[in-house]
């Protein structure tokens, strides 16, 4: 497989230290779960809408593994529409005419927040593997500092899917008094063994690429594009469902009448995955992929509460709306339901909807009217209780 000439790679590289978005630099130490600390850090973020006078209408959107802060604007590297522009924008369920929306690139990311591709202040070189391992709680800790600096005491809502949903749950547990409403979507209270397994396959693919160079590829002017592309191809299958793949591709052949009896991309699904792999490596840093998948693996909300998830939610005062998708086998309904059951047990205020769809985990990013109706209805109800004007 040829990963091709990286069209966007140079543009993506520029985003690492000087992102095309707002950027908050913190000249302070950030203590991390792993025991280390960052001497300083920066968070790249986007905002949409207007913060009201009493700063009560802010919604924080948390992005997933390969997302970024460009939730509702054209992406500066790919030129594509924001990854959740169906959900966030004027008149959308997360209505930017009504709410002040913040989306920050996670710590460990590669779109401007401090991550493995960022310059290490100690030597000016990219951190690479010298960056301490980041956890979901570390990401949330850094976001909380950003929210502090924006002068917002209490967020009206925190919303996110997948790894973004993990951040939502962490917010509600770490800062219950700062989250009025929480919408964790297609997520889980801990990463399952199966999902850690998938992540490990991805990481091994990256690290097996000779151009990964022990993580020092940026300093050496190389890129483990093939390894990262394979990681993305494998992961992409897990984001869909068997029936969605069948409907979309079946066993259809790619630009040919017959099998070639070789190892070229005979089938449309092969061609599709190769394309997904190639476009991904142009915009994403391989080491970031290692750090962020690791953050998901380490996520286990109940761990600090002797395995009792309900105890983790004991002090949670937020209103919750948990949403899952019927064909999601990466973060299946059962995992989401376990969040609901634990919230029930802790006496929290919780709604739960399973959206019927065959589009798998990816459904949370797609045009799913039932998802939009649920989010907008839940937010409308919460806004009424919060006293936000219509």
């Amino acid at each position, binding site marked *: 497989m040829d990963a091709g000439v990286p069209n966007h790679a140079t543009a993506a590289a520029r985003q690492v230290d000087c992102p095309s978005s707002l950027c908050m630099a913190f000249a302070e130490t950030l203590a991390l779960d792993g025991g280390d600390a960052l001497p300083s850090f920066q968070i790249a973020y986007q905002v949409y809408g207007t913060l009201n006078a009493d700063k009560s209408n802010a919604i924080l959107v948390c992005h997933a593994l390969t997302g970024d802060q460009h939730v509702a604007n054209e992406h500066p590297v790919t030129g594509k529409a924001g990854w959740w522009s169906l959900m966030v924008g004027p008149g959308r369920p997360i209505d930017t005419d009504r709410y002040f929306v913040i989306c920050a690139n996670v710590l460990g990311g590669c779109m401007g927040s401090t991550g493995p591709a960022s310059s290490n202040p100690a030597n000016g070189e990219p951190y690479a593997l010298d960056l301490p391992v980041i956890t979901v709680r570390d990401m949330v800790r850094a976001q909380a500092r950003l929210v502090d600096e924006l002068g917002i005491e209490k967020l009206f809502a925190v919303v996110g899917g997948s790894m973004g949903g993990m951040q939502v749950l962490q917010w509600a547990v770490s800062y219950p008094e700062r989250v009025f409403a929480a919408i964790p979507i297609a997520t889980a209270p801990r990463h399952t063994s199966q999902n850690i397994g998938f992540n490990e396959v991805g990481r091994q693919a990256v690290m097996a690429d000779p151009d990964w160079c022990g993580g020092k590829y940026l300093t050496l002017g190389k890129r483990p594009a093939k390894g990262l592309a394979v990681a993305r191809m494998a992961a992409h299958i897990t984001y869909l469902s068997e029936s969605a793949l069948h409907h979309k591709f079946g066993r259809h052949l790619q630009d040919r009448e017959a099998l070639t009896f070789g190892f070229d991309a005979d089938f449309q699904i092969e061609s599709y995955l190769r394309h997904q792999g190639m476009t991904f490596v142009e915009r994403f840093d391989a080491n970031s992929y290692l750090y962020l998948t690791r953050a998901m693996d380490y996520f286990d909300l109940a761990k600090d509460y002797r395995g009792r998830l309900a105890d983790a939610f004991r002090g949670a005062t937020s209103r919750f709306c*948990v949403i899952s998708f019927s064909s999601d086998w990466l973060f299946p309904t059962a995992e989401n*339901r376990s969040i609901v059951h*634990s919230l*029930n047990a802790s006496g929290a205020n919780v709604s*739960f909807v399973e959206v019927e769809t065959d589009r798998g985990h990816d459904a949370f990013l797609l045009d799913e009217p039932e998802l939009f109706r649920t989010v*907008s209805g*839940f937010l409308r109800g919460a806004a009424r209780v919060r006293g936000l004007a219509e």
Partner: protein
Amino acid sequence: MSEMQLATMAADPDRVDLRVIAGFVSPGSRVLDVGCGDGALLKLLAQEKGVDGRGIELSQRGVNQAVAEGLSVIQGDADRDLETYPDGAFDFAILSQTLQATRNPRTVVENLLRIGRRAIVSFPNFGNWRIRSQFMVWGRMPITSNLPYSWYDTPNIHFCTIKDFLTLTGEIDAKIEDAVCLYGEGKRMTQTAPWTIWNLFGEQAVFVLSRG
């Protein structure tokens, strides 16, 4: 809820039990409505009594409608999800017209009594004379306006009579705090009538229970 919806609900003789239930709920209390449908009762209770309400509903349509209205409702069922609530979490745990559709009605009622200080249960009375006579005269499974399903597509798998329910309350040591029996177009049967009369003429019953 708009005036019109309220009027519709009150006018619907099949769901007049919701009005009766609402009458038993004290203002500002914490309420769990099991099998809450589209959240009509929760909405009524929130608006008229200022309750802090939660719901459980099996159908996705019902849940989505309720959540979209700003109600706190989870998709689930009485058999599976009641276990997850802690003891005494609610002032009232309500089960309206759902008992007969549960797999384990006894466990469900026990759970209601564990979760709520009071359990309010409404159910169709299978001892009603129309049902008895349909079965007696025609030898067929009864179909009435309250219970319109054929035997092969009914969600109702555990029918009981008012007398059966009384026996159950005795078996699980539940105390009957109050009860209302409805007949005709949602009329209330006199409280002094004996159980046998309720059981023969009642179409629906609403019981308020507490732990004995």
